[in-house]
């Protein structure tokens, strides 16, 4: 981000950027950067807090009035603690589940639909291009992949390699589950959402298994993709 700011500024555009990692911005030296003390994913502070977002933006825009730079200013606000539970850090609730992930999805569908309705049709689901009517088949595909079988789906575009396609599928499943859960239990904190997903859902058990199967591949690109599924 701060490298792009330099490129744009050199081309004759005035830039100001939001910076997440102070140590990186100090090295890259973009012209005008506002450092914010929030975790990745929270660049403008908090979701649905327009006042805070406006205060951050106003602080960034003030830097445009400075006569010279580089300027690295701090947004003076309390930190949001950086807590992001990952699969390996979450204890599974009980034994390995033998329940069917496809049934689990069916059980969450009403909550997912409520989420979409409450957000004027907005959903983060959609990267894989696999219609939700085909998700029972998607689950079978991922289960077979996790068992090491050679499988594919007809929805995979020819120019998207299988591991990358799987990552889009997994991202769609994650978005569906989190959105459904946020509709089901709106008061859930962010860490609790992750603990629920990795610790209590059947899909949160299947995704690390898919990742392990991909990790076993000889292909370095597949390994890179696997790292982003679960860890």
């Amino acid at each position, binding site marked *: 981000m701060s490298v792009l700011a330099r490129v744009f500024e050199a081309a004759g*555009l005035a830039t100001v950027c939001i910076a997440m990692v102070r140590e990186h911005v100090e090295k890259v*030296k973009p012209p005008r950067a506002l450092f914010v*003390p929030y975790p990745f994913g929270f660049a403008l502070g*908090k979701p649905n807090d*327009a006042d805070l977002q406006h205060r951050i*933006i106003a602080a960034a825009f003030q830097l445009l009035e400075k006569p010279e730079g580089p300027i690295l200013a701090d947004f003076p606000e309390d930190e949001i603690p950086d807590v992001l539970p990952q699969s390996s850090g979450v204890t599974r609730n009980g034994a390995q589940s033998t329940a069917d992930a496809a049934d689990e999805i069916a059980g969450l569908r009403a909550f997912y639909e409520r989420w979409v309705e409450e957000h004027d049709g907005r959903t983060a689901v959609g990267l894989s291009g696999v219609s939700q009517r085909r998700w029972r088949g998607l689950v079978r595909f991922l289960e077979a992949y996790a068992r090491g079988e050679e499988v594919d789906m007809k929805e995979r575009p020819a120019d998207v390699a299988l591991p990358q396609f799987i990552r889009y599928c997994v991202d769609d499943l994650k978005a569906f589950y989190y959105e459904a859960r946020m509709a089901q239990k709106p008061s859930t904190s962010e860490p609790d959402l992750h603990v629920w997903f990795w610790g209590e859902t059947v899909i949160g058990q299947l995704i690390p298994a898919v990742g392990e199967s991909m990790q076993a591949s000889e292909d370095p690109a597949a390994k890179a993709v696997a790292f982003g599924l679960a860890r």
Partner: protein
Amino acid sequence: MPKLERLSAVVRQVLTSFPCLEADDTPWTPPTRELKHSNLALVTSAGLHLRDDKPFAADVKGGDTSYRVIPSDAKATDILQSHTSIGFDHTAIYRDLNVTFPLDRMRELTARGVVGGLAPNAYSFMGALRDMRRIVEETGPEVAQRLKDEGAEVVFLTPT
């Protein structure tokens, strides 16, 4: 981010060893006009794109250095994020796209007269790139030219 010493060992290690470009000097273009008379463009490294556009890829060595065009009148419903990293919490963006791509806030500021106007297009890149060369030499300058051709004077850059 919170200060490095307050992060988990894994995150701290990733950030400390991240291959940043280092610079001694900084390019500088003063704004030609006050913000209230200027055209502003949003550029993000959140890996956003229109729903029917091609997602960014995670299987490219060094990172995906391409970019996507997002019209400034796009609806949040039409925008997806293919920055599928598990290194950040996606739930904030599920809840509110403005937390990484403040299009609604920019529209409000334009309506209030704080910002002169919005350029017709925003641009999106992928974040966490380990090899920035193509950004510096090719796709970055290409987007800079497009922004200038479209009348943008000020660029607000947001990460994810």
